[in-house]
C-alpha cells in the first residue's frame, strides 16, 4: 500500500473506522450480526495470517483454536465469570496448545505440516463432541451471556457489535505493532529463508513456536467473542471446514498482507450473504467466484493491488532511468 501518499492513507483509514462506527447504527439486527461475525472472523484470520502469511507456517487448525476459545468463554461465562477473564483464559490456553502444536513444524514443513494440523483439527472436534462433562457434547452450551462492559449491558446487537469492533481494533493494533517489531521481521525471515535467518542469529525454533502460539491465541480470542455472539455453541461449527474457511480467508484476502484478513473475512462472510438472493445457487456462485478470483490472482485480492503498485513503481523507475540516461547523453 506504499503507493499512496501518507495523508491520503490516514484519511482513508479514519473514514473507514468512522464508517464502521457510525453506519451500522441504522442497521437492523441481522446486519449487525453479520458485521459482528465479520469482525470476529477477521480476528481469527489475522491470527492465521500471522502464522501462515508472515511466518510461512501452514496451519489447518485455526478453526480448532476458535473452538477452544469459544468453549473456554462459554464454560466460564455460563459459570458466572466475566468475559474479559474468559478471554484471558482463552488466550493463555490457545497460546499454550498452539505452542505445542508448533513442535511438529520444527520437524516438518509445508504440506506435511498442513496434514499434522489437519489431524489436530479433527482431534479437537472429537474432544469437543465427546467430552460431554465439560463441553456439553453434541448438545453444546446454550444461554451464553453477553458481557457488561463498564456497567453497560451489551446483550443488544449494537452494543455487542461495538464489543466485537473494539476487540478487532485492539487486536489490529497489537498485530500491527507485532509485525513492525523485530519479531515481525524475524517471522518474515522464517518464511522467506529460514536457513539464512539462522545464520543471522535468529532462533528459528523459538520464533516458529511463537508464530504458532500467537496466531493460535488470536484464534482463541475470536472464539471467545464468537461464543457470546451466537450465545450458543456446539462442536459442529468448529470442525475442519472452519479451519479451511479461515485458510481461504487468508489466501483470498492476500497472505502476508496486513489488510488481507479483513478483506478475506469480508469475502467469506459477506459475499455469500450478498449472493443469497440467488437462493439455491448462492454457494455455487460463491465457489465459482472464489475460483475465478484465485485464477485471476493466486496471491489474493491484495496481490492484485501489490502487482499493480509494483508495475507502477517499475514504470516510474524506468522512466527515471530514461531521464537520467538522456541527461547523460546530453552532457556527453
Amino acid at each position, binding site marked *: 500500500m506504499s503507493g499512496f501518499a501518507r495523508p491520503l492513507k490516514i484519511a482513508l483509514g479514519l473514514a473507514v473506522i468512522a464508517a464502521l462506527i457510525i453506519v451500522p447504527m441504522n*442497521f437492523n*439486527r441481522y446486519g449487525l450480526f453479520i*458485521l459482528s461475525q465479520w469482525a470476529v472472523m477477521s480476528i481469527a484470520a489475522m491470527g492465521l495470517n500471522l502464522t501462515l502469511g508472515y511466518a510461512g507456517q501452514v496451519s489447518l487448525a485455526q478453526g480448532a483454536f476458535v473452538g477452544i476459545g469459544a468453549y473456554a468463554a462459554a464454560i466460564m461465562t455460563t459459570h458466572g465469570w466475566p468475559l474479559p477473564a474468559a478471554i484471558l483464559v482463552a488466550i493463555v490456553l490457545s497460546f499454550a496448545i498452539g505452542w505445542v502444536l508448533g513442535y511438529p513444524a520444527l520437524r516438518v514443513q509445508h504440506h506435511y505440516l498442513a496434514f499434522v494440523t489437519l489431524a489436530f483439527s479433527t482431534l479437537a472436534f472429537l474432544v469437543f463432541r465427546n467430552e460431554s462433562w465439560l463441553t456439553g457434547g453434541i448438545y453444546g452450551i446454550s444461554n451464553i451471556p453477553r458481557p457488561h462492559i463498564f456497567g453497560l449491558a451489551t446483550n443488544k446487537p449494537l452494543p455487542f457489535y461495538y464489543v466485537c469492533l473494539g476487540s478487532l481494533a485492539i487486536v489490529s493494533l497489537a498485530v500491527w505493532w507485532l509485525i513492525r517489531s523485530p519479531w515481525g521481521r524475524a517471522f518474515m525471515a522464517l518464511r522467506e529463508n529460514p536457513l539464512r535467518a539462522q545464520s543471522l542469529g535468529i532462533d528459528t525454533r523459538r520464533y516458529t513456536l511463537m508464530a504458532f502460539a500467537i496466531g493460535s491465541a488470536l484464534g482463541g480470542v475470536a472464539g471467545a467473542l464468537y461464543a457470546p455472539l451466537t450465545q450458543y455453541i456446539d462442536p*459442529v461449527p468448529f470442525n475442519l471446514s472452519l479451519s479451511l474457511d479461515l485458510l481461504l480467508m487468508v489466501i483470498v484476502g492476500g497472505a502476508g498482507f496486513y489488510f488481507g484478513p479483513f478483506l478475506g473475512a469480508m469475502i467469506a462472510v459477506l459475499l455469500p450473504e450478498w449472493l443469497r438472493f440467488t437462493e439455491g445457487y448462492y454457494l455455487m456462485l460463491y465457489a465459482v467466484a472464489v475460483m475465478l478470483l484465485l485464477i485471476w490472482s493466486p496471491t489474493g485480492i491484495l496481490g492484485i493491488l501489490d502487482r499493480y503498485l509494483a508495475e507502477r513503481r517499475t514504470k516510474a523507475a524506468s522512466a527515471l532511468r530514461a531521464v537520467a540516461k538522456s541527461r547523460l547523453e546530453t552532457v556527453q
Partner: protein
Amino acid sequence: MKSTLVVGALLTVMTATGAFGQAIKLANVAELSGGGATVGTNWKNGIDLAIEEINAKGGVLGRKLEVSHADSQSNPGVARAQVQKALDAEPYVLLGPGYSGSVKVTAPLAAEAGIAQIMGGEAAELTQTGNKFLFRTSFGQQSSMPKVAKYIHDEMKAKTVAVVWVNNDFGRGGRDVVVKELDRLGSKVVADLSTEAGQADFAADVGKIKAANPDAVFVYLNEEESARILKELKRQGVTAPLMGETTLIGQKVIELAGDAANGARGHVGLTTDAPVDLIKAFREKFSKKYNYVPDHNGLKGYLAVYMVKATTEKMGKVDSKKFADTLHGLTIKAADEPGILMDVTFSDTGDIDRQSFLVEVVEGKQVVKQVLPKVK
C-alpha cells in the same frame, strides 16, 4: 466500507420487497446445505408443496401464502443470523430450523420478537424451557422414546439391550431418553455404541453387538446408515430382534437394505409409510412433484404450513400476536383440515400428540402391528 453500505442497501431492498400485496409472509430457515442438507431440503420441499396446494385453493382467509427460504448451512451461528434476518422482516410465522442445536440458538430470538416458530427439531429439552412461541411438527424424543423403551421391555421381553446411535444431536438425544427409560423399566443396556454420520463400515459396531449378545438391539441412525448396519447385522448373523424409529424401517431403508431389513421393527410417529390414506396421497403428490419419496422431514414441513393455515382459520384473522396462544391446546382434525393428515393436539408447551404405529418389516413390506393411540 463499501461492503457495509451494500449490505445496508441490500437489506433495505429485501425488507421493501416483502411489503407488496396481501400475501401472508412466512419465513423458513432450514439446513439447505452442509450436514443437514437432506433434512432441510425435504422440509423445504414439504413447505413449498403445501403452499402451492393452499394457494391453488384460494389461500388462507382469501390471502395467498408466501415463503422465503434461507439456508442455515447446518451451522447454528449461521442459523442465528438467518433467523435474525427473517425476524427483521417481520414474518407471520417462522418455520424451521430442523437441527435441534439451531433451534436452541434461534428460539429465544423468535420468542423475543413474539413470533411463533414451528420447527423440526426433536430434542426433548426444546419444549421444556418454557418458551411460549415454539411448536413441534413431530414427537419430541421425550414422547416417542418412552414408547420405544416400553415396547422393547414389554413386548420384546428384552432383559438386555444394545443401543446403536448416530453421534449428532438427533441420535444422542434419542439415545439419552431411551437409555434412561430402559433403565427405569429394568432392561439393561449391555452395549452403548456411538457411530458417525456418513459411516460406511459397521463391522466393528456389529461385532460389539454380537459380543454383548443382547435380547434386543435398538438402532437409531439416519436412513442410509440404517441400511448399512442392517446389512452388516445380517452378514455377521446377529439374530436378536431389532427395534428402531421411522429411520430404521422406512420405505427407503427397505429399498436400500433389501431383505436385510426383514424383521426389523420400529415406532413410527410420522412417516410417509403410515397406513393412512391422506398420507399416502401426500406421498404421491410429493413424489410426483420432486421425483423422490420424501422422508419424515418432508412431512414435517408440509404439516408446519397446514398448522399455520388451521390456526389462522381458527382465529379468523391473520394475527401474529395471537397465533401462539391459539395454537396452544388446539386440536386439529384431519376431517376438518385434510392437510394435517392425522388428528393432532398441541399441548401448552408446543408438543404434539397424535396416533402412532408400531411397524414391522415383513418380506420387504411394512406391516402395522399396533396402533398406539394419542396419550390424551
